[in-house]
């Protein structure tokens, strides 16, 4: 196991570096640089612009800047935001909490709803619940999440007045868990909707696969109760591949979060990404790229490890 983890990390490291290199080049070669953004607002003189450019290190070639960035990175320094000179790590840290709480809520909610429906639809194939599951699956993956967000605000906030239209917490009310959850509910449900579509479909087909296996038939033939056959022999094995799905969910959630946070004024990493792109805040953008790439890689690694722990047939030392 340890050897497996070490080897995976050894593969993940160059992949992460490759991602940062590609992003660094794209970001720095893109037309329009941060200075233009400043100048537009402040009307600086040419020599002041030159000095600013030198201060930010923008007149060096791209590869020099990348090596410098990398050197700083290995000392634990992600650089400073062009906007307010705050350390990038602080900007990321203050946005991490809201995004993480949103993602965890979505993961819990979508599994809590999708797993039972998926399992039931497999056991009772062609029943009403099976059609419901198919409906959710098609709806979930086809309904654009920004449109779902707008519809949800329109119905639950503007028409019914049940839930807030956005934001992390009630202004000036101070921190309380209940208030946070109250604000989390709507964006969380909208984001969970798509995940449910993917999960229901996957659980259903995985469960269908398993209940056709010989060992399930054997268990039933041996006279075990239907409950025991379904849950002890069926469900436990059907849930195994879902662990891998968890690893795939993380990059999808990063995508969803950008749009949902924008609609619901949720001060997380997704909004930070849009702010950073609009203001050409390169260090913040690189910090975001790095942290989302690391999150995706760690997610996949965790999924692999969990899978191996749950399924003794997988031997990690073997080549894939």
């Amino acid at each position: 196991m340890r050897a497996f983890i070490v080897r995976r990390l050894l593969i993940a490291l160059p992949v992460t570096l490759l991602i940062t290199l590609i992003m660094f080049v794209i970001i720095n070669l893109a037309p329009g640089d941060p200075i233009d953004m400043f100048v537009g607002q402040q009307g600086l003189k040419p020599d002041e612009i030159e000095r600013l450019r030198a201060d930010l290190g923008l007149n060096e070639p791209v590869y020099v800047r990348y090596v410098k960035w990398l050197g700083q990175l290995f000392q634990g320094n992600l650089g400073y935001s062009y906007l307010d000179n705050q350390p990038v790590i602080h900007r990321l840290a203050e946005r991490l909490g809201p995004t993480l709480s949103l993602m965890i809520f979505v993961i819990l909610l979508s599994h809590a709803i999708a797993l039972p429906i998926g399992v039931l639809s497999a056991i009772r194939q062609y029943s009403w619940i099976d059609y419901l599951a198919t409906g959710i699956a098609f709806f979930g993956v086809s309904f654009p999440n920004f449109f779902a967000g707008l519809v949800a605000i329109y119905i639950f906030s503007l028409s019914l007045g049940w839930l807030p239209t956005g934001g992390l917490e009630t202004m000036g009310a101070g921190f309380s868990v209940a208030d946070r959850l109250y604000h989390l509910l709507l964006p969380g449900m909208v984001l969970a909707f798509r995940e449910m579509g993917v999960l229901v479909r996957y659980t259903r087909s995985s469960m269908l696969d398993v209940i056709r296996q010989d060992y399930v038939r054997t268990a039933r033939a041996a006279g075990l109760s239907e409950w025991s056959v379904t849950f002890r022999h069926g469900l436990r094995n059907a849930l195994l591949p879902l662990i891998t799905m968890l690893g795939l969910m993380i990059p999808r959630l990063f995508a969803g979060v950008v749009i949902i946070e924008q609609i619901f004024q949720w001060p997380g990493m997704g909004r930070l990404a849009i702010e950073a792109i609009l203001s050409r805040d390169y260090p913040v953008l690189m910090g975001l790229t790095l942290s989302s790439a690391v999150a995706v890689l760690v997610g996949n690694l965790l999924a692999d490890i969990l899978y191996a722990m749950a399924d003794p047939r997988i031997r990690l030392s073997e080549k894939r």
Partner: protein
Amino acid sequence: MSSQMKALSPSAVPSQSFRRLAWRRFLRHRLALLGAAVLVCLTLMAMFAPWIAPMDPNRVDLMLAREGPSTAHLLGSDVVGRDVLSRLIYGSRVSLSVGLFSVSIYMVLGTLLGCIAGYFGGRIDMTISRLIDAVLSFPALMLILVIVGLLGPSTLNIIIAIAVLSWPEVARIARGQTLAAREETYVLASEAAGARPKRIILEEILPNILSPIIVDATFGIARAILVEAGLSFLGMGVQPPTASWGNMLNDAQSLSILESMPWMWVPPGLMIFIATISINFVGDGLRDALDPKLS
């Protein structure tokens, strides 16, 4: 030489009866037929937009801004007085072309790389597989946002960004299928007859592994349409005055428009939904038809 080869390699191209069977299976899938019908309508709408649209989609008329539906403007007008219905009709051009072009590009790219990796194996396979892993662990939308946001938002840049980030999925499927196919007798026979790798891949293997790739590509079109709509909604995709279903929803980020002018944002949202669910229905039907084992 070529006639000899044909004689030696038994049935490399899927037979006529397979196609007929698949076609029959597809016709039995009602939702897929419905989806296909809707898509035909949307395609016609996109092709003949100038003749169908009641007025110029980009004509600004500030006197008529934010008017609700009426006989003059069936779906009302937007914040600068452009006709919503006309913009809706023209918007289908953006969605469909982004979906079709980005998927065509990455399907060709992914299939070729996947086939090459699977057929040659060894070092070539190693390199391509690592590349697949690397791109798959990119947080895709984040990168698309950065590329489009920085390179400048245009339809072409969106198509390129989607294609560059989506080919690995197809490549992985093609590689797996090729690995299995290269052990088949028709490939071995063709090799024994001295056919070149290029010929074996393109004429023997490719026709036999296309089914799952076509199915994946169909779902890919729906995904690409959603990505474009999402980007345009954020203001980082297709830029006004060009109408796209996504950027028509952009104005609804203001709560007053969201609350009191639903004609501006409900129709484009529904169009995106109708287009993607139709494509997903067709994809489901194709999967049942082409690859009965999978369903």
